[in-house]
């Protein structure tokens, strides 16, 4: 017989907490070690995801490291072997209660009218630790209350306990140090600089981490009280980062999203767009009942009638042109279940290969077949190569994770871009290319010794996405292929933006054998070859970069079926519009950009008679004579696990045990090679056009969230300040912008982020009374790049 050696973990540290022998991880702070072992030490300033500052002094405990008990802030000191911690010794308690009384001394105690009331650590502490009523009889500090420090956040300095959380977040995490301590001592306060609001894409997080009610968010103020909140954990599908959220409702209405700390993804943070667009779920303008096109326009009809019409439209199309004459666009907005049910309907029931979850604004699905990286892998790679859009605007929390990788000195960023991005100031090296020439930029990079030395230092992850909508995806793919040819071990993180575009594509909403991609589908429709176009939450008129193509396609398609949550530009042209249940109105799963599958949860009942997409697909299939066999979303989830390679594990049960989700890649997708890049010559056209998205635009959910609707920057043609004079107009003037396709009039803006010789126009901006110009009019989906002329009127 052999004696089993006990396995000793080198990272384990043994110490005593209140006499109990416990083990903690090396480097753990006492406050964390205690919490992990069931001893909660009160705190206000400590936050696990930020550096410790030891400001509030609430976490003081007596610690004996052999030199007798010492009173120390447990948020500052790491555990040490055999250290004795006393969280409830008389001195520890005295210190904590003393500090609490001091924190309360200046506090207005206006809990009844405070949003935080009921979920306030200060309030809770006061009950559990505090000495009850305050002995502080002096005059308290008075400040004007509350003051708006941005469009979304209010600050009440009287409630503030100066824990440095919001300011640390703004500086350390978001990199927008726009709120700061001012003044000194007893007059210390948080504030912004006069006329420079806390305009951060991440400001909402400060509201969530404020341990008191000093910071409140305008969309939530006075909306509800914690005790009548119901909550469900879910995943944000606003973009494809897939941040974990707690969806909170009151009286069957969504009132708030709170970030949930998911280690592989969002660390508890959310961007303001994802946090506040819950307002759109509650919007008055939601589509509540089916709409059927009649001679006099759309008329509300029953589901029965609408589904009959839908089935009829499909059958007629089949009769008229066969399966290939039917095409489906969209599905990136729904759940995996929605996508899978619709994929079955399109591919198996109808039998068409012409299916795409993208809208000519993404990348060939082949990128999903590459050697893919997770967010963690990207954020720990020695070198991160960016061949992507401005992540701060398109995938905000991925931006936070990559910025953190740089701040923590884990990674260096090499950025290839046409325009300065949010990460440029954190990049080790940025090389600017002229749109279309990214392959040359890659060649130059590969020829650069310093760069190759850096690349040689460890893992490499390439973040690839569609940086420019006025450019085809070909130049990006060409550059990517060149990179991967030279760096065969590099992994790829696809920066595709739309919420569940990766999931929809992976579970089947992609071209079948010989099928058309989104551009092909639109061209076919424009050429009258599409008998029936199904828009699954897709709005080509607002989302397809080439506006003219979109218009011609919708005009050319003989029948249009739209499934949507709102009456979009495109669904206004549909023969039948089916109201879809929106976010938080249905259960299911979603897949983020790294392939991570997580649960999304229903929290409120769907608006009107709207239904989940998967259910609609099932009913249509039934009317077409096929039973997809789905009666609950769980049935669909199981079917996915059964039929989709890579999703085997993803049963409902497994996912409920893994709230952080499981990564499912798509071995079944085959890489496709892009067409060659052909750059037209510039001559008369002085500027090469860049069109990309900003965080706030006219996207359905943003536009229907009052708090966000006003934040879009608005359309304008941005050029380098040095080019302004060359144009002969001055900033703010309207100028004529001409491409090979059309001429539109836009206001001129100077922008140091834009390189000379290029011009940037933000995509899909709200059209103002004075300017209805659509940048899409200038874009030609068949051209590699778009060159423009800018002239005075």
């Amino acid at each position, binding site marked *: 017989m052999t004696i089993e050696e006990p396995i000793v973990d080198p990272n384990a540290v043994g110490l005593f907490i209140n006499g109990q022998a416990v083990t903690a991880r090396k480097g753990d702070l006492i406050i964390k070690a205690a919490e992990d072992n069931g001893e909660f030490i009160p705190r206000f300033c400590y936050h696990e995801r930020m550096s*410790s*500052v*030891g*400001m*509030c*002094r*609430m976490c*003081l405990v007596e610690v004996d490291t052999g030199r007798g008990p*010492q*009173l120390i*802030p447990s948020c*500052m*000191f790491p555990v040490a072997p055999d250290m004795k911690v006393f969280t409830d010794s008389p*001195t520890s308690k*005295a*210190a904590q209660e*003393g*500090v609490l*009384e*001091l*924190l309360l*001394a*200046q506090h207005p105690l206006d809990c009844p009218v405070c949003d935080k009331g009921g979920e306030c650590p200060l309030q809770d502490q006061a009950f559990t630790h505090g000495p009850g009523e305050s*002995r*502080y009889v*002096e005059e308290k500090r008075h400040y004007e209350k509350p003051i708006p420090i941005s469009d979304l956040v209010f600050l009440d300095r009287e409630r503030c*306990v*100066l824990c440095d959380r919001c300011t640390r977040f703004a500086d350390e995490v978001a990199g927008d140090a726009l709120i700061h*301590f001012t*003044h*000194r*001592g*007893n*007059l*210390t306060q948080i504030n912004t600089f006069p006329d420079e609001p806390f305009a951060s894409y991440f400001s909402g997080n400060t509201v969530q981490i404020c341990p008191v009610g000093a910071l409140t968010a305008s969309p939530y103020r006075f909306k509800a009280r914690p005790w009548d909140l119901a909550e469900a954990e879910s995943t944000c599908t606003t973009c494809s980062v897939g941040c974990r959220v707690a969806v909170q409702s009151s009286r069957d209405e969504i009132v708030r999203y709170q970030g949930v700390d998911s280690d592989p993804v969002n660390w508890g943070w959310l961007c303001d767009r994802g946090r506040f667009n819950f307002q759109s779920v509650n919007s008055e303008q939601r589509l509540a009942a089916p709409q059927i096109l009649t001679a006099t326009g759309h008329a509300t009809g029953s589901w029965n009638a609408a589904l009959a019409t839908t089935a009829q439209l499909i059958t007629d199309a089949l009769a008229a042109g066969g399966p290939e004459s039917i095409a489906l666009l969209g599905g990136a907005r729904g759940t995996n279940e929605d996508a899978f049910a619709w994929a079955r309907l399109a591919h198996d029931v109808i039998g068409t290969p012409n299916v795409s979850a993208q809208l000519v604004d993404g990348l060939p699905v082949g990128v999903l077949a590459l050697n893919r990286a997770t967010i963690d892998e990207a954020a720990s790679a020695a070198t991160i190569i960016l061949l992507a859009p401005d992540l701060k605007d398109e995938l905000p929390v991925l931006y936070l994770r990559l910025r953190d990788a740089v701040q923590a000195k884990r990674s260096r960023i090499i950025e290839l871009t046409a325009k300065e991005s949010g990460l440029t100031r954190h990049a080790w090296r940025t090389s600017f290319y002229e749109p279309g020439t990214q392959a040359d930029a890659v060649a130059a990079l590969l020829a650069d010794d310093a760069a190759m030395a850096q690349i040689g230092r460890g893992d490499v992850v390439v973040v690839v996405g569609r940086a420019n909508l006025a450019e085809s995806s070909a130049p990006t793919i060409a550059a990517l292929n060149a990179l991967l040819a030279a760096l065969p071990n590099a992994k790829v993180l696809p920066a595709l933006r739309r919420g569940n575009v990766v999931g929809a594509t992976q579970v089947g909403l992609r071209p079948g054998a010989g099928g058309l991609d989104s551009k092909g589908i639109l061209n076919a429709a424009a050429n009258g070859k599409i008998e029936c176009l199904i828009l699954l939450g897709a709005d080509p008129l607002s989302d397809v970069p080439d506006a003219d193509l979109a218009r011609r396609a919708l005009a050319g398609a003989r029948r249009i079926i739209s499934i949507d949550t709102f009456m979009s530009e495109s669904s206004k042209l549909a023969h039948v519009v089916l109201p879809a249940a929106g976010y938080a109105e249905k259960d299911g799963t979603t897949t983020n950009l790294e392939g991570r599958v997580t649960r999304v949860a229903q929290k409120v009942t769907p608006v009107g008679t709207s239904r989940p997409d998967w259910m609609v697909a099932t009913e249509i299939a039934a009317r077409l004579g096929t039973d997809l066999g789905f009666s609950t979303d769980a049935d669909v989830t199981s079917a996915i696990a059964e039929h989709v390679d890579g999703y085997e594990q993803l049963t409902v049960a497994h996912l409920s045990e893994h709230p952080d989700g499981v990564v499912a890649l798509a071995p079944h997708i085959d890489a496709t090679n892009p067409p060659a890049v052909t750059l037209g010559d510039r001559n008369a056209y002085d500027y090469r056009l860049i069109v990309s998205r900003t965080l706030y635009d006219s996207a359905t959910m943003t536009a229907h969230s009052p708090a966000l609707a006003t934040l879009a920057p608005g359309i304008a043609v941005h050029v380098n300040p040095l080019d302004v004079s060359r144009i002969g107009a001055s900033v703010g003037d309207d100028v004529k912008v001409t491409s090979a396709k059309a001429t539109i009039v836009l206001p001129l803006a100077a922008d140091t982020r834009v390189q000379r010789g290029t011009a940037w126009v933000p995509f899909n901006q709200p059209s103002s009374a004075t300017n209805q110009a659509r940048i899409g009019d200038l874009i030609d989906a068949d051209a590699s790049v778009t060159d423009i002329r800018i002239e005075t009127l």
Partner: protein
Amino acid sequence: MTATTYPFTPGFYSGDRPEIVTSRFKYEDSYSLERYLTTDGYKGLQAALAKTPTEVHDEVRGATVLGRGGAGFPAGTKWGLMPPNVYPRYLVVNGDESEPGTYKDRLLMERDPHQLIEGCLIACYAAGLSQCFLYIRGEMALAQERVALALNEAYAAGYIGKNILGSSFSVDIVLHWGAGAYVVGEETALIESLEGNRGMPRLKPPYFPAAIGLYGKPTIVNNVETLANLPWLLCNGMAEYVKVGTETSPGTRMVAVSGHVNRPGVFEIVNGTTTFRDLIYGEDFCNGIRNGNELKAFVPGGGSAPWFTPEQLDLPFEGRLVGAAGSMLGSGAIMVMDHTTDIPAAALTLTRFYAHESCGKCAPCREGGTWLMRVLERVVAGHGTDRDLDQLFEVGETICPGAFPHASSEKLGLAAVPFPYKMTTICFVGPSAYAPVHSALTLFRDEFEARVVRRRTIPVTAGVGQ
């Protein structure tokens, strides 16, 4: 035995005592390079350059040059705390003198800037410090001008900059100046301020900037007077240096005695042997209490120090003994109160100071200091109650829970409690707001009680103790 002063050194008195840092004060032009060079100027630097850095460091270590900024930590030892082979290393000179009662560094900067500069150079050479920042308190206009001129002269003459005196030793000394915040004198706050931030003390650990300091690099922070000792030390050698003073406290110390004495003044005294009695009553020092009044109490080491009473007069000016007696020498500042002193009002001036100077970081200091001040103000104004007196202790407890050091007094049966004591704050500003209240209230409670309102009768505001 007399005390000599000069119109250009207001407050300074020399006597027949060793002069290690004040030897040039007698010359009106003591701050000029010309005068400096004719009085052994930069000889210490030359002596240092003739040795290896290690030898110079050993010299300073051997002489146990105690820090003069407050903590009294030996400079040589502190330099040794820097992690080996981590560079660059910086020197930050603490010229932020603002501890109540303290008046010495300003004189040294105004009257003998070259001596300070030479001290900095010696420190940089010995400890391998690549750049020196000389941080002068913002309100000291003259000191800033004199040091700026001296630096310009010294650069021109080749004492600072590239290859000093033809050696391989090169260093810049950069004049930096503050903008008015007492707490910035705390070494980690000084570093924060020097980095362009709010002068808030940094969190410990690390306990010493020597490990992680300016820009996260090893940094030595030394007081002006500490560094001013080095030229003499290097010229005359550690053997000579330790001859002055005692074994535990060699050399001299500059001490400012202010308040109700006949001759308030700044003196360079022999370390460790001179007693408080000598200083307050000696005719070559302060020559007694004004108008022959009685000594009531005195603060032995700057506003932060717990108070002493006549009982401690015969303690020598020696760190350990004073510490054992429950107070500290701190920055060499003695404040004397005679029997006419309104004790609660006197305590208030100090508590107000520390409450006002709190950086605002620690809740106990930020809120507690102000709270103490408010209550004390009420008591002094005659609107206080018995309850308020206990409250002063209760609030103090939130800053310094448990034992608090105070003047030990057989009379009052108070035992001495040595430093460091328990505190809920990062730095000593918080406890310092409480120290005077605690001392005054334990030593002279009767005066407070005479002030407070009883059963809501008319306030007793009559001047107390007159």
